[in-house]
Every structure is written in structure tokens, then in C-alpha cells.
């Protein structure tokens, strides 16, 4: 039974106004980006009628095409690497006898969430340039590796949550029924962990897809991803083409995040 005298935040004056303003501030700019992506004119602030022309322009722009493919490639490989690392880390922190410094290890895995991104970026830049000098390798591998590292904690969170919610007696039952540890993981743990892995992977993919700061520091010339390409364009002349690309990215992100959420909720 609800206690009617319980504190209700709605009793505070101006709450609805406050909340409303916050939502407007959050979403109005995004809405404007989407609206002006359909602008027939050449600017991102003066409406001149509806048109698909900037979507066509972006589609036919070779630089955009190249950056998009690179972004998808980086995100695909990095998110898979990050997810694999996250699964191992989550197993180590939930399916092992408590070991000394478990809390510290957890903190270390989540480090990218706490360390300012710019610091990591500078660090990676320095380390990678040392490796470049030593090995001569100049490829996209550095960007992929950097993305995999900062995507890991995002995948880790959702996979670990799923593992923690799982009934340990199921794995005991697997062992009782002659399953060796490896086969228990394969036949009992993994099938149930799957939704967590899927949602972790999608989250990692989205995070990789829109990263700017670290990519900007780590990439070599001619290795623009879609976000760094867009940043580069903003330094010149801004056209609604940027809005069109943003809108597509927004749709992809929303779709992935919703799928990740639904996958994570399933049978949890």
C-alpha cells in the first residue's frame, strides 16, 4: 500500500518546467540537425524547402563512402575484439574464487570510463608513434586497437551484469552431469550469456562508430573515419550534407542501442 505522505518530488514548484527545459535542451539540437538535413538550400540554418539532395550528395561523395566503410570496418573488428576481452574479464571476475585485489582489477578494467579520453588519446599517440618507429607499420591497426581498448568496459558492463544474474547452480548441475569446465562453458554458460554478449557487442560497436577524440590522435593521414571526416569538413564550409550523415548515424545508433537493450532484457 502506498504511503500517501511519502515525499513526492512532483510537489516541488517548477519541477515540470525544469524537466521540460532539460529535455528541450537535450533534444532540440538533434531535432534541428535532422530537420535541416532535408534543407533544399546550402546552409544549416536557413530553411529553403524540403529536399533529399544532401543525402544524395553524401551518398555519392567518394570521401564519405571511404570514411564510412573505414568506420564500419574499424567498429566491426574493434567491437568483436572488445567483446571477446570483455567476456574473459567478466568470467574472471564472476566465476573465480575471490582473489586478492579483485576490486582493483575491476577498477582497472573500467579505467577508460574514468580517465579523461584526451589523456588516453595522448598516451596512445605516444606509444603508437614509438611502435611505428620501431616496426615501420603505419596501417589502420592502431585505430582498431585503440577502439577495442576503450570499447571493452562498455561490453564488459553488460556481460558481467548478465553473468552475475545467472544461477550458479546451473553450472554446478553441468559439472554434476559430467561436464568438464570447458564443456560447461560451451553448453550451459554461453547459451545463456548470449543476450549479454550481443548487447555488449552492439554497445561497443556504437561507441566505436562515433568516437572522435582518440581516433583523431591515433589515425595516420588518409585514415579518416566518418566522425573525423565530419570534423574535418566543419573546419571548412558547413553544408546540410553533414546533417544528412549525422541523421543516418543517429538512426543506426538508435537501432543498435534498442536492439542491445531488448537483447539484454531477454530471458534475464
Amino acid at each position, binding site marked *: 500500500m502506498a504511503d500517501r505522505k511519502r515525499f513526492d518530488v512532483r510537489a516541488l514548484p517548477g519541477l515540470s518546467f525544469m524537466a521540460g527545459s532539460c529535455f528541450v535542451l537535450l533534444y532540440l539540437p538533434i531535432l534541428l540537425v535532422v530537420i535541416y538535413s532535408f534543407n533544399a538550400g546550402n546552409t544549416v540554418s536557413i530553411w529553403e524547402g524540403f529536399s533529399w539532395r544532401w543525402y544524395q550528395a553524401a551518398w555519392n561523395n567518394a570521401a564519405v563512402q571511404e570514411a564510412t566503410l573505414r568506420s564500419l570496418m574499424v567498429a566491426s573488428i574493434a567491437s568483436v575484439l572488445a567483446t571477446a576481452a570483455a567476456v574473459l574479464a567478466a568470467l574472471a571476475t564472476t566465476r573465480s574464487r575471490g582473489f586478492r585485489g579483485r576490486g582493483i582489477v575491476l577498477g582497472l578494467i573500467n579505467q577508460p570510463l574514468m580517465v579523461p579520453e584526451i589523456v588516453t588519446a595522448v598516451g596512445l599517440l605516444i606509444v603508437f608513434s614509438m611502435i611505428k618507429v620501431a616496426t615501420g607499420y603505419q596501417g589502420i591497426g592502431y585505430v582498431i586497437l585503440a577502439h577495442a581498448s576503450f570499447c571493452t568496459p562498455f561490453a564488459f558492463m553488460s556481460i558481467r551484469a548478465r553473468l552475475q544474474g545467472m544461477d550458479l*547452480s546451473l553450472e*554446478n*548441475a*553441468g559439472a*554434476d*552431469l559430467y561436464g568438464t569446465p570447458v564443456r560447461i562453458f560451451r553448453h550451459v554458460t554461453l*547459451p*545463456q550469456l548470449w543476450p549479454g554478449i550481443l548487447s555488449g557487442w552492439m554497445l561497443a560497436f556504437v561507441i566505436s562508430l562515433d568516437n572522435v577524440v582518440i581516433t583523431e590522435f591515433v589515425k595516420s593521414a588518409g585514415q579518416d573515419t566518418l566522425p573525423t571526416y565530419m570534423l574535418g569538413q566543419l573546419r571548412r564550409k558547413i553544408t546540410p550534407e553533414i546533417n544528412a550523415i549525422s541523421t543516418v548515424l543517429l538512426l543506426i545508433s538508435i537501432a543498435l542501442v534498442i536492439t542491445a537493450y531488448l537483447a539484454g532484457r531477454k530471458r534475464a
Partner: protein
Amino acid sequence: MIEIDNLTKTYGAGPQAYQALRGVTATVRANEFFTLLGPSGCGKTTLLRMIAGFETPTSGKLLLDGQDVSASPPYRRPVNTVFQSYALFPHMTCAENIGFGLKMLGKPKAEITRTVGEMLDLVQMTPMANRRPSQLSGGQQQRIALARALAPKPKVLLLDEPLSALDYKLRKDMQIELKRIQKDTGITFVFVTHDQEEALTMSDRIAIMNAGTIRQIGSPRDIYDQPAERFVADFIGETNFLTVGLLGVAGQTARVALPSGRELDLRAPGELPKGPQVTMAIRPEHLELVAADAGQLSGRLSNIVYFGTDTHFHVDLGEGGALVVRSQNKPDQMPRLTAGEAVGISVLPGTGQVLRD
């Protein structure tokens, strides 16, 4: 079949150390229904998990069929468990659940299919073969869990309070069912429960546990009729305890003086404490209400509690303590008694015993 040799289990170390098992020794015979019975925290589940291989003993040995398995992991022991929570795999159908153990053992597909069919038949769940556990009721899940544990034909089946989540009627049915399956399969069952009625009705032998030790092992009848000590007598069924004077001991018989001054010969298993006073244990159903001044004891009725099949008469013996007398309800046989009345109590011949504390 199972030899439990002085097993101990200590959790933690130093001042916070907790001894879950303090030297348990027992032998479980082949094909028997063996029950570990005791209050919660007595170590019965720890012992069961140790036989399954989920706990390693701190000291002592565990022999299965003559082989020392103390250090073997669960998947190398020919032992299967029916878990309290059933622990059915939610992503598999009932048939896949039952076949899991055989699959892990690397049995051929045809054999798995045949055994799964037999097991479904045994627990009368054939129509549910392709359902998922979440689509089953608690009682049905229970049957699948049982079938899954039996399918690999283990040497020993361990059951961890498997009936505790079922309602009363279903529990009664499953008790009979389990007993039937145990007889049919000839597999040794080790059953953990805190429900004494369950233990008495199902077991061939019962081990009564308390505080990490086994207090007594015996058939249900032995345990009930001849409890070895006060804890067992108190835990199994209801028992009256009376302080009586010890007059003399001759072999297994002790002559005691009741609070009323009358003398009585009682069974006296084991050694008795030295001293003028000992504890007499007597079941309420081994006492009979008689006319005041007629029995060996006398007192005043303090309370009458009606239980349907029988009635409990609480009798205040004054200085000598209090007793409960149970008598079966038969129409028109009992005189109508009321609280406050003076009554006599007679001890049925051959019942009651002197116990060590």
C-alpha cells in the same frame, strides 16, 4: 557403497573459522535409501555437496565403491544430484535436459534417445518431452530434475531437499514416487531433509545430524523407538523428558523412582551419567490417562488440544514437571475431561528409557 571417513570441513581461518563438519563417519550401503536429517546448519547439505564434489574436505576421506574420490572434481564422480532449486537448463527442452549427462559422457545418439525416453516414462512426463522448463509446474520440474539425474545411471543419487518447494499433497505423492523409483532402479539414494516425517516414511536408514556431527544412525524405527540421546529423542517426534531418581542399573535396564515415588524399570541404552538423577524420555503416545491415583503418575490437566486424529492432554505434575499425553480419538471412548481435573497417568509396559543428555 559410500564410506565417509572422519570428514571435516572448516570455512575461513583464525577466530572467524567455522566448522561445518566436525569429523563425520558413516557407511552408506548399496541400494539403500539413506537420509541425512537434521536442523538447518547441522552440516547435512555440506556433507551432500562433499559427496557430489562441490566441496573439498578439510580432512578425512571419502570412498565411493572402494575408490578414494576425496580429490575428484564433480564431473569425474559417478554421482548425480537433484538440486533443491532443480537447476534445470532453461535454454534446453526437457528431453535435452535429461540427455545432458549422457551427452557429456559421449554416449551415442541412439542410446541417448532411448534412455531419455525411458526416463520420461519412469517419471511419467513423456508428453512434456519438448517443453521448456519454464513451461512446467514446480512438480513437473521436479520430475524432470529427477529424470535428468537418473539418466546417466549413477551409482549414487543425491537429493538436496528436493520436495521442500512443493505443496503438501504433491509432496506426499512425490515421497511415494521417489521410494518407488528407488526400488525400481536399485540406485543408492542419499536424501537430505529437515522434515522428520519425510525421513521416517521414506528411508531405509537415517543419520541424525547436529552441529556438524552425526548423532545416531539407524532405521526409522530404531531412531524413533530407541533414540541414543536427548537431542535425537527431542528432534524426532515429540518426547516428554522427566527428571527421575536412579535406583540401580542391571545390564540394559535401569530402576528409577518417578516423581510420584513409584518405581519403574526402564531401558537404559549406553552408559548413564553417574549421579542420583537421570533423564527419562517417554513418547506422548506411550502414556495413557487413567483415573486419578490409578497410574504411576498423577497430576492436573492444564490444557487439552484437539488435533483431529488425536488429542494432546497437557498434564501438570506439580513439583515433578509437566507431561503431554496423546490419545487417539475414538468416539465415546474417552470420558469428557476438562482442564483443571485431577488425572492419573499410566506408562505403557516396555516403553520409555533413560537417556544421556
